[in-house]
């Protein structure tokens, strides 16, 4: 019997500090037993439990794309017990990973549609995974226009700066990077909150589906903008967070009504959420 609680051993291959406040680091992990990589076959939107012996486990969205072979990437905010410890670990250290867990973005439904990606702050991780996945040449033709609105408080708090600049250069994806404010005279992108920029740059809900990830306040103000544009709640897709332990729908911790965010989610449409108790 497979033990769904047993992590695969991995080695930290590379650690990149993402933001100027140094609170976010991206960990590139490599499986110690190569055969485990095959078992860990994932799709964008899923997450994993990262395991640190002696400290515990944390659920973290998978930031790499399945099209990137040989490693996994996670971008981790420094918060409490486990994530603080992770931030002090070094390249070469051994840890564990369990998954992939949860559902994913609705890839079948997204095919043939315009995809609007809206992200705020550090909740851009599985959206990065999705973008990398979609712009891969063999996948790109499956989707119509791809637009991205991504914002952070300041330029220094944007994740994946190197890639954002690259994506800006491409003509098969429309980037709308924004910051709440900046005194950088060389800042060449937008200034303004994510909901405002969404209102300005996204002009149609026609055959479109929106993936929205960000802090609660951003989601709260983006939702009416999307609804005004004509997005039905079935085509507004959100990824939720809840405190988790098992990640497989057994420990009873992360329910919203009869749904477990870890197993039935973390991705839900707004339409689905409207039918569940408002408790998250």
């Amino acid at each position: 019997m497979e033990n769904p609680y047993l992590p695969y051993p991995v080695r930290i291959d590379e650690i990149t500090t993402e933001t100027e406040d140094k609170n976010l680091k991206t960990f590139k992990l490599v499986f110690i037993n190569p055969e485990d990589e095959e078992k860990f076959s994932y799709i964008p939107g899923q997450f994993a439990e990262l395991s640190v012996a002696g400290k515990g486990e944390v659920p973290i969205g998978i930031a790499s794309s399945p099209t990137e072979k040989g490693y996994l990437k996670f971008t981790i905010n420094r918060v409490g017990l486990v994530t603080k410890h992770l931030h002090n670990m070094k390249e070469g250290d051994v840890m564990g990973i369990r998954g992939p867990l949860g559902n994913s973005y609705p890839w079948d439904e997204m095919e043939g549609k315009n995809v609007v990606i809206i992200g705020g702050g550090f909740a851009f991780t599985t959206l990065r995974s999705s973008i990398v996945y979609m712009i891969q040449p063999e996948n790109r033709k499956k989707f119509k226009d791809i637009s991205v609105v991504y914002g952070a408080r300041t330029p220094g708090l944007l994740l994946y700066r190197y890639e954002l600049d690259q994506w800006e250069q491409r003509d098969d994806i429309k980037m709308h990077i924004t910051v709440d404010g900046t005194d950088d005279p060389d800042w060449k992108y937008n200034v303004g909150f994510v909901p405002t920029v969404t209102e300005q740059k996204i002009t149609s809900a026609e055959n479109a589906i929106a993936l929205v990830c960000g802090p609660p306040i951003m989601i709260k103000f983006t939702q009416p903008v999307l609804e005004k544009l004509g997005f039905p709640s079935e085509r507004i897709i959100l990824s939720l967070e809840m405190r988790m332990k098992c990640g497989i729908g057994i420990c009873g911790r992360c329910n919203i009504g009869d749904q477990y965010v870890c197993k039935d989610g973390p991705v839900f449409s707004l339409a689905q959420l409207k039918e569940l108790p408002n408790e998250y």
Partner: protein
Amino acid sequence: MVTKIFTKEEWVRALKGAKDDYRIYLPVKHKDFHAFELLSDETAPDFEFQNTRLSPKSLIFPQSERMFEYSLDEKDGEAHIVKETPKDFYPQAVVGIRPCDAHALQLVNVNFDNPQYKDPWWVKRLESTILVGLGCNEPCSTCFCTSVGGGPFSERGLDVILHDLEDVFLVKPITQKGETFINKLGQGRMADDTLSDKAEAKARSSLEKVTSSIPTGKLRDKVVTELFEAPFWEEVAFACINCGTCTYLCPTCWCFDIQDEVLGKEGDRIRNWDSCMSPLFTLEGSGHNPRSEKCQRVRQRFMHKLKYYVDKYEDGVQCSGCGRCVRYCPVNIDIRHVAKLMNDFAQ
């Protein structure tokens, strides 16, 4: 399958004779309560009880269980690699479990053994366990098993059922596993019709002694969001002191926490029973807590048992009617009352 008769002395002697082949757990009397204990030569089991204070759930799902272990010693080539803690899953028999508590294990089983994931410890331990039930001649005033799909002589989830006929036990195997166990015990004699009829009559009369009930028929059709917003939750939760007794005693509660514990350079990953009555249960690292208030937590407990479970599994409520939470809640919060509020609720 052959139903047998044992005198009570024979029964205990036979069990003692089988204790090398099975770990046998039996009810033992403490001052004012009964608890399941491992049978040894010295054990004096006592079958005169209404129910044990704690159900034997912990024999399948221990209150605290080591899952994994690891070394943190850098000199160890496998340092930081998490490994399964070896376990024996030796055959065990729980003798004297009440039918409601066996039913409860069935209600919990759908959580641990589901189409997508199998909890290996639960599954293996349940497989290696023989449940020998003791039918209830004298149900408590707080028992309401008959309204939630059980009954004082319900065989659901049991391998064997015992009927207490004063000086003898009528021992009736229900599953193959149960029959094998009874055969292993040897002893006993075949039950004759008189005793079988007597057992049946007694079981029938005890059915009428269950006078308490909860209404559940309309729960499935309620709109979950409306029930969630119902006005009665504040009042239901008002007196609750969040002690967690209800979840701790409940044979159908299954929530657990996972923690790492380190001693020197050795560490374990352990799971412990947890309670949705604790505010820490849902507290996130950011400080956000979707159930920071008592009322939200009390609502979660009842909604889980009487609505979410009902919707998810379409097999009734997540409650076996054992009445423990009713008897032991220090402020008399009563699931029978709450079920009625929920079942009768109209928007």
